[in-house]
């Protein structure tokens, strides 16, 4: 089966919050060893899809698999075993406010390995230096800027060199230079540490730098997925808008007020 090459997939995924349907029949594949970028406008359901894939949200229909396991229905012990091989960077960081940055990054090591403490300390320092936060180790998350929190959270998510790393907008809120550094780091994870990366992003420049594959979400539906060049070449107007950074035509938002107020004879 093709599943052996996929670290995660979704089939016919439906999810609604109350009346609002947020995911509509989502099919998506995330191949091993690749960097897959999930693209889509604000509110298109990207974060929701990621949470379904790691089992934090249960879909109302359809199925998912993470490292071969049906994460939603699996018993807790199996779930935990699979999740130890997974890292996730939350959109808002989700750092533990009661711990320092260093303790946050150290937590997965303490919980899941039996490494000697000195080695754990060294790993924390190394990874914090990689994300450019060597000086912030002993500070609390609340004392960091938004972009610094993002990077600290990336350090925590990646400290165990997970098989799959889910990143919810890793470079949002970062300046262009730091953002390029994070992209390089993700490529390093994928190429050298054999981490399969699933990254949500709005940044076209970042997609061009890192993506092997893209999944495009619009209004909770996957409208295209595949290699970046293929998807970019698609004539679908919704993809054109995204890649050419055009705002959608106003008919979809509503009628201009001017049309409504123009005298009939003066209509263009």
């Amino acid at each position, binding site marked *: 089966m093709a599943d052996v090459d996929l670290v995660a997939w979704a089939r016919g995924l439906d999810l609604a919050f109350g009346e609002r349907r947020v995911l509509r029949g989502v099919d998506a594949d995330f191949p091993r060893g690749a960097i897959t970028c999930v693209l889509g406008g604000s509110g298109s359901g990207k974060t929701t899809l990621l949470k379904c894939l790691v089992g934090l949200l249960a879909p109302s229909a359809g199925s998912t698999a993470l490292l071969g396991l049906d994460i939603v229905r699996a018993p807790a012990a199996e779930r935990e075993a*699979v999740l*130890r091989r*997974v890292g996730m960077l939350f959109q808002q960081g989700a750092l533990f406010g009661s711990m320092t940055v260093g303790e946050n990054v150290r*937590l997965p090591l303490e919980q*899941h390995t039996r490494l000697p403490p000195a080695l754990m300390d060294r790993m924390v320092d190394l990874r914090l230096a990689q994300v450019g936060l060597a000086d912030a180790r002993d500070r609390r998350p609340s004392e960091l800027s938004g972009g610094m929190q993002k990077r600290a959270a990336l350090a925590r998510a990646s400290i165990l060199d997970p098989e799959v790393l889910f990143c919810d907008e890793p470079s949002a809120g970062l300046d262009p230079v730091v953002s390029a550094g994070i992209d390089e780091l993700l490529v390093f994870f994928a190429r050298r540490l054999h981490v399969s990366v699933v990254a949500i992003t709005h940044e076209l420049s970042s997609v061009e730098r890192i993506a092997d594959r893209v999944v495009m979400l619009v209004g909770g539906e996957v409208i295209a997925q595949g290699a970046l060049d293929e998807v970019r070449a698609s004539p679908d107007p919704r993809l054109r808008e995204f890649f050419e950074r055009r705002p959608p035509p*106003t008919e979809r938002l*509503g009628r201009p*007020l001017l049309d*409504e*107020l123009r005298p009939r004879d003066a209509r263009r």
Partner: protein
Amino acid sequence: MEQLRIETDGDTLRVRGPLTAETAAALWRALEARVAEGGDVTVDLSGVSRLGTAGAAALAEGSARARAAGGRVVVAGPRPEHEEVLEQVVLPPVRPHRRRAPFLEHLGAGAHGAGAALARSLRLAGGAAWLAIASAWRGPRGRFAETVRHLVRFGSDGAPVVVTIALLLGLALAFQAAYQLRQFGASIFVANLVALSVLRELGPVMTAVVVIGRSGSSIAAELGTMVVREEVDALEVMGIDPVQYLVVPRLYAMTIAVPALTVFADAAGLLGGLLIGVTYLDIAPQAYLQQTLRFVVPGDLLIGLFKSVLFAWVIVFVAVAYGLAPKSGPDTVGRATTASVVTSIFLLVLVDTTVTTLHTIWLT
């Protein structure tokens, strides 16, 4: 500030001056009355110096009402910059704005929801209790330091207030008893009454109420904030069981802290009785102590401590159940914290009454 002037000329409203948030209400009032009658209204914008969003909204709302009444609102003489504003403002499909429920409706809904909320919290508490007991079996797993930290927070930090309150309650209780018993020349029995009430009821219950206010609320708020900030989700994705990681250290700490505080409260309460006996009733300290020791049995202390362990579990499970319940924002944290305090005081009294009743039946 420049004024807005509106002149009426047949079906035309001639507007002069700025049409902004400060002035748009006047245009709206002029429009509202006219469009309701149906027919067309022309708004002449040629004298308008500045057209803002509020002005555009007045025109849009007027136009919508006019259409509903079978008429229209049209503009005349807009300058190019006005046209640009009116081009950029789009009319989305109309949906009614939701208003917050008025106070009485809110009360009604609250009363209706109260029963459901109680059922839900009991179910949550049951689930959490089961999980906590199951994972307590596995031990705190390297969370020893964390357990000690909570023990200090729940226990030693709370000791001064618990001891003070217990002492004062002991004084008050002894006073009440002394006043009555002295009339019968039975002053010495104050010692019996104080000892029994403090050891069996007052010490454990009063300690637990203070701990609910100090620590139960803080557990609920702390965990609730972690839920809102997705920290609990993050734990789960790391393959760390949040109940094991967050609840078990607190459960251990509370199970030690509440009985320990109860012992201090008992001592302080008895001391309060002794003070009244010595000062107000002129009983010699030795006589008072002898009377106490002769009357009290170890079972009195033990039943109090047994209760305090049950109270500790009630406090932890209720706080955790409300703290870890799904949240939609900071306001839900506040509500969950309040609900956790009310629920645990209620359950505390329920447990206390049950144990006391069973104990009394068993004794007789």
